[in-house]
């Protein structure tokens, strides 16, 4: 009885409700930290060179098979679910453990992954000789190295094979990079030149210049020159290609089959089971660097994300250049020049609310207004010879940056206004009393003092822009941009080009790619990078804001 009444008193005191509220805080914290932790763990573990296991696996009623691969996942499943996938457990057994094995060798098995039921594993081993080969096509390969061949002739086998393989791999990778370099820069330049000539010709046609006259002949002459240069490069390339295709390796798959892999198709190879922890750590950072600096392969599901990082940075930079002056001018006008009254208050509310308008609406506006309306008009006036293929009349970097500038300008305005209103009146009045004009006061004292606030606004704007995807899907982001926005072809900065973006990369690889399962670790790694950028930017903004507040507290007192 006493117990009950003390419980009642406890409830009446309201303590349980306070605890419940505390619980809400705990839940929120667990969710926040858990989420970041989840992304970090999954994203960062992607680069670790995991051990490869060799399993002897015997399904009931079937012959023993050898399976080779990386352990990816492990779970306990109820029998009913297993039954759906055609696996029937013995009567009375209600759950089973199973392992997800990344078996690689997609060109031989058709699948990258396979669920393995633990009870049927007869034996597990980690032979040091197992090689993990990262290929340019068909994903990873797991198996044993048998020998190294040069034009079909075996040049090394057994013990020497591995060293010979590594040496020749370095050579083929160097050749591969050289070829890519020529194809991208030199041939790209020639193609661009040919396209320019075609446009020149079209321009002449539009100007009603008669065919066969001098300007046409000049163009023809230049075209000939470009074609000769192309033929020469082509020859050089053919030679490099035959060099590249010189070597092959022979490998043995888990089921005993032997296969040949051309050296040209291999990115790198290592023997994780034979590596020490330090070596693995080295490999880890190597992989992480490749991820950040490399080009994507295999429909973005493999390789690096450099173009996406580059595109995001470019877009954010152009957006910053646009948004800062305009945001600051608007804020200065609202705070310093406009007559404070109902209208300005209304405008302030409107600007505030625009920060809450869904980003997709800005995307729709950007597509309709910037791309089709302004871009279409620009094409009509300046790029008529190129029509009907659009220059600025299609989604591109400039329009994406402009759209995001409009989207983030309220953030800059609000932050700058806040900074301006924090500047003590005395400072302004002191300047005016000394005879400075309003403009001078603004330029020499007020704005420099508000600079950290503008910085905060800009950082918040950048953080928002870097994470925004929905509007970009309409105004310029693509899954695979053929070339970066900056290259060696005049005018060097191509604002009309489409670009890749980290956020869109996540959406595209995670949801549109044909091989989601294989690409998942890569998406986690990309997500981690994006979170990292945005959290750092936000922390910087918070830090600057706090410091700013303290500075003014000091000057006010």
């Amino acid at each position, binding site marked *: 009885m006493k117990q009950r009444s003390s419980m009642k008193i406890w409830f009446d005191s309201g303590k349980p409700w306070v605890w419940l*509220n*505390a619980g809400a805080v705990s839940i929120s914290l667990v969710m926040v930290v858990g989420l970041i932790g989840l992304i970090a763990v999954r994203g960062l573990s992607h680069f670790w060179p995991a051990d490869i296991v060799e399993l002897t696996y015997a399904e009931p009623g079937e012959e023993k098979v050898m399976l080779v691969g990386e352990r990816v996942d492990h779970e306990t499943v109820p029998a009913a679910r297993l039954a759906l996938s055609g696996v029937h457990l013995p009567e009375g057994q209600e759950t089973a453990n199973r392992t997800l094995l990344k078996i690689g060798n997609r060109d031989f098995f058709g699948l990258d992954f396979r669920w393995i039921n633990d009870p049927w594993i007869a034996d597990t081993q980690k032979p040091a000789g197992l090689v993990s080969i990262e290929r340019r096509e068909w994903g990873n390969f797991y198996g044993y190295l048998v020998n190294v061949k040069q034009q079909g002739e075996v040049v090394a086998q057994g013990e020497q094979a591995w060293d010979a393989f590594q040496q020749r791999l370095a050579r083929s990778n160097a050749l591969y990079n050289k070829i890519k370099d020529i194809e991208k820069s030199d041939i790209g330049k020639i193609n661009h030149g040919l396209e320019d000539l075609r446009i020149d010709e079209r321009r002449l046609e539009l100007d009603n210049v008669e065919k066969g006259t001098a300007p046409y002949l000049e163009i023809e002459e230049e075209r000939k020159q470009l074609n000769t240069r192309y033929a020469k490069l082509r020859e050089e390339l053919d030679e490099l290609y035959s060099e590249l295709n010189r070597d092959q390796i022979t490998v043995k798959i888990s089921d005993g089959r032997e296969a040949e892999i051309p050296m040209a198709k291999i990115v790198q190879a290592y023997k994780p089971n034979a590596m020490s922890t330090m070596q693995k750590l080295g490999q880890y950072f190597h992989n992480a660097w490749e991820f950040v600096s490399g080009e994507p392969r295999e429909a973005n599901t493999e390789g690096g994300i450099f173009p996406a990082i580059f595109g995001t940075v470019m877009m954010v930079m152009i957006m910053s250049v646009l948004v800062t002056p305009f945001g600051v001018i608007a804020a200065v006008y609202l705070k310093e020049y406009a007559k404070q009254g109902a209208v300005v208050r209304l405008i302030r509310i409107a*600007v505030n609310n625009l920060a809450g308008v869904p980003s997709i609406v800005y995307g729709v506006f950007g597509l309709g207004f910037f791309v089709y309306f302004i871009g279409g008009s620009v094409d009509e006036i300046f790029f008529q010879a190129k029509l009907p293929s659009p220059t600025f009349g299609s989604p591109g970097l400039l329009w994406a940056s402009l759209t995001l500038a409009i989207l983030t300008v309220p953030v800059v305005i609000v932050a700058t206004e806040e900074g301006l209103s924090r500047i003590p009146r005395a400072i302004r009045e002191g300047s005016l009393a000394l005879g400075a004009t309003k403009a001078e006061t603004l330029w020499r004292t007020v704005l420099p003092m508000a600079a950290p606030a503008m910085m905060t606004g800009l950082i918040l704007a950048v*953080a928002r822009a870097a994470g925004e995807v929905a509007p970009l899907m309409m105004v310029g982001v693509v899954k695979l941009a053929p070339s970066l926005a900056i290259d060696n072809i005049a005018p060097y900065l191509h604002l009309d080009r489409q670009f890749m973006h980290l956020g869109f990369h996540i959406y595209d690889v995670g949801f549109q790619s044909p091989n989601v399962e294989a690409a998942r670790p890569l998406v986690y790694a990309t997500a981690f990078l994006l979170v990292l950028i945005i959290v750092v930017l936000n922390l910087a903004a*918070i830090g600057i804001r706090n410091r700013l507040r303290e500075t003014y507290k000091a000057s006010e007192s």
Partner: protein
Amino acid sequence: MQEQTVENSVLPAPGSKVANRRRAWREVKDRIAKYGVAVGGISVILAIVLIFFYLLYVVMPLFQGASLKTEATYHSDFKQPVFLSLNEYNTVAMALEASGVVRFFDAKTGKTMSETTLPLDGKTISTVSAGAATTGVFSYGFNDGSALVIKEKYKVTYPTGTQRVIVPEVTYPLGEKHVAIDDQGKSISLLSVQSYEDKTTFVAYTEDKRLILKRFEKEVDFLDDTQFTIKEEKHEISLTDVSSLTQVKLDIDQRELYLVDDKGFIYYYDVQQLDKPRLIQKIKAVPTGVDITSFEFLTGGISILVGRSDGHIDQWFPVRDKDNNYTLHNVRSFDAQSSPIIAIAPEQARKGFLTLDKTGHLGIYHTTAHRTLLVEPYVNSSAVIGLSPRANGFISMTDKGDVKLLDIHNEHPDISWHSLWEKVWYESRDKPEYIWQSSSASNDFEPKFSLTPLTFGTIKAAFYAMLVAVPLAIMGAIFTAYFMSPRMRSFVKPTIEIMEALPTVILGFLAGLWLAPLVEDHLPGVFTLLFMLPVMIILTAWGWTKLPKAWRERIPDGWEPAVLIPIVLLVGYVSMASSGAIELWLFDGNMPQFLNDVGINYDQRNSLVVGLVMGFAVIPTIFSITEDAIFGVPKHLTIGSLALGATPWQTMTRVVLLTASPGIFSAVMIGLGRAVGETMIVLMATGNTPIMDFNIFEGFRALSANIAVEMPEAEVASSHYRVLFLAALVLFLATFILNTVAEIVRQRLRNKYSSL
């Protein structure tokens, strides 16, 4: 040593020329700055406001009616034709004259371009009919029971590169020889012919009231596709109890046949198998005293349009009932005209049509949108009309030979308030429904632009998200602002607030690829978790009071969340771990399957997942504003309340919450605004099927996700494009209103606090 002069001193003497010049210059600069900033500031603000007006500008044309512009009027001296048609550029017109002459003429001037006299073999033409407008087929019936099929064709060439030259010609799909339809050689009084791909079907009504069906089918040899045989089929339908037919119409697929008699009855036949025609329905289509004066198929051949003598036009189409039987239904009527409809011209690409009545009024209508776009007096005597394939040009010729060529401006007849927001009875559907289906592979597809299921999806997503976010965020904010120790608060608040900046694409990705499969595999665990968390928290709190004092004092007041974090983790782990066992025990080991079996649809990417993740995305917004509102409650209020003996909790609920309630309201509004507009999460975490069902285990399609999916493919300035802009405008207005309300409430609150 140089002498100090006025000119070279650092600070010129006041009143000197230099000083004045400098001052003037400074004033100019000041003024430039003033106007520069004003112009810049105002233009930035205008640019922002422009968004709204631009959206409006794109959407407006949707709701404009049709308008006509007379392109040319002239008198022609050729005989009045039975049929008129226009080519797709509105430049060449064709007139079929009753005498068997096919005349192509310049639509603007009336100058004859070519004239073909059909091979009549000395027979008399007894009837002329048109096939579906998209095929360009016409047919002539003769007095000896034979028929001839012709087809109009416009050859377009560009001989000089840009100049377009159109050469019209007449072709004969079945050859120039007449086809014998009636073996008895009776004159054909009504004829309907459809010829499409390799199949041609004739339906002929003879003067002695027999109905003859005849079909020619070209069968290409499947081994050698240059070889073919022509299969001929013939059948007669007996019309014993039918008085006199006035209309015979076969649909473009040559499957359905409609007959109309002089008493206002429609006979609906299935003639897919020509030798077994089946009368599906005989129905009195008009009230007594009203006649059927014209009869046409709507494009696509599913709906029929019945023009009546009282000026009404009815749309009918076959509707399937439960037993898979089709019956004709009068789906909608248009009653804007009042005298007998003498001609109906269906559009070829849209579900719209034009009508001409006996008093010469022209009407433009659209069926799906149930819109009357225009009714205008047009001619004052009976006329023959022709509509161009793009439905933007129209030609007519009166019996006196006056020709009129019109430009029709009618860009978006297919959109109306009704078609956007109300239930619409679409073709081939068994009842009026809300459907969003904007495109399809087929050409004569009826676009279904109902924003209702999309808006429903948005509301559904926001509802489940708020269900998760509101309690967690508000309760968390209450504790953080009022009970939490300042040190912990200085860490907790930024941590939760930083989540507001987390890109939603990451949340969407986690929702779709991590949480959705996790929830599917651990469904019972999720519900256990939702139930067990509050219970365990209260139990922990109770247990805490029972702990020895020395233990309790290790953790100071205001650090309760730190105590609870391990509990939350533990409950989470136990719930997930026990999920499999509960599933085995209660749901045969597979709860989603179990749900499906009891009739609750389960999708992997469902509203539960969206609710959890979007709730998570909205928590920081609501948390932050609520926390500010509660924290800003003047301290003397709470101190007063506590001094009067109220417990902290009583002070919280009776004083603080009441004072801060407008702030909390505005926090919820802003959170709602964010949930409504969120795109990536709903795009990635649901199946994006536009269904209307509040089932938490099913997906939906939200307005924002719909825009993201369809906008890149929408053709510029098409109805689809503008409807997507309308969806954006709806989102804009919804969030803008929510935010404005919240902002006004918040400003009031701020004033209240400062006056307290």
